[in-house]
């Protein structure tokens, strides 16, 4: 029996995750072909190929987003250590003596909050640079970028937490040397969380803002 609709997950990936402005037309083309008798396997192959090609093409066009995020993520580990060293003489050092949930709020505010602020600062700064270069500034794109960067950071934060459970840091973070900061796998993984979050936020804000509108036939 001929199926009317292609696999729902593949269709969702095509409509929401494949980068570029062509998704609607491509989604329609693939649906038309599917309804003409193409298999689900064929549909999946087309979607995955469109995802990889679309991502590669957008990356080539927006390489500056990656470069900016790379340099923004570079000092993140040094800043984190600075925050840890700074808090030792403050109220935050005694946070675990507080009753729950205040202890947890303090912990989240210090670690997660400070890191999210750093990600947001990167997205705002990057957006300002790219907007000035393109002479186009729209607050709604910036708000979207900030939201997306938060979601991306939440995911990478959990991933990094799991990473640290599997591969604990081989040194005391308070006494790490500059060389340890640069070459340590844990620190590279830590920077990746910022890199991914800033790329996601800036991509969403800047690339969406610069996409051209296609003329519609009346």
């Amino acid at each position, binding site marked *: 029996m001929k199926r009317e609709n292609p696999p729902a997950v593949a269709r969702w990936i095509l409509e929401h995750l494949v980068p570029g402005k062509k998704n609607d*037309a*491509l*989604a*329609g*083309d693939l649906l*038309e072909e599917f309804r003409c008798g193409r298999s689900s396997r064929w549909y999946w*192959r*087309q979607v995955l190929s*469109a995802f990889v090609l*679309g991502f590669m093409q957008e990356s080539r066009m927006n390489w500056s987003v990656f470069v900016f995020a790379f340099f923004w993520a570079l000092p993140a580990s040094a800043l984190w250590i600075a925050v840890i060293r700074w808090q030792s003489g403050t109220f935050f050092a005694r946070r675990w003596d507080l009753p729950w949930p205040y202890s947890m709020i303090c912990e989240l505010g210090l670690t997660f909050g400070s890191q999210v602020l750093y990600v947001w600062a990167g997205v705002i700064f990057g957006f300002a640079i790219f907007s000035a270069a393109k002479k186009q500034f729209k607050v709604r794109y910036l708000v979207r970028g900030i939201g997306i960067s938060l979601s991306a950071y939440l995911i990478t934060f959990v991933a990094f937490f799991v990473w640290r459970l599997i591969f604990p840091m081989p040194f005391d973070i308070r006494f790490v040397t500059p060389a340890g900061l640069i070459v340590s796998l844990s620190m590279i993984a830590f920077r990746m969380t910022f890199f991914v979050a800033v790329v996601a936020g800036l991509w969403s804000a800047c690339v969406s803002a610069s996409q051209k509108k296609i003329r519609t036939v009346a």
Partner: protein
Amino acid sequence: MERGYLGEFELMILLTVIHLGEEAYGVPISREMEKQRRRGVSAGSVYAALERLEQKGLVKSEIGDPTPERGGKAKRYFRVTKEGLRQLHKTRRVLTAMWKELPEFKGEPA
């Protein structure tokens, strides 16, 4: 600035778009490419090439009306621009001249 020559895939796509005329949208372009190349073509790669050609100003695209058989998605029609035609002729001239320079093939496939 002088543009580079067209790649094989881009050249085939431009010729297909001209061949299809008013009906040049994703599905017929991919089908025609498959027919001519005698192997599968990914719709994503066709669109990626068309995007590149549009950025170079060699094709133009327009969105048609949404249709129910496509799940309410509109077709995106492509058309070769004057610059695209100029590039095609230039590429053909260069390729023809290069073929003419070659010694005669022996055991040429049919």
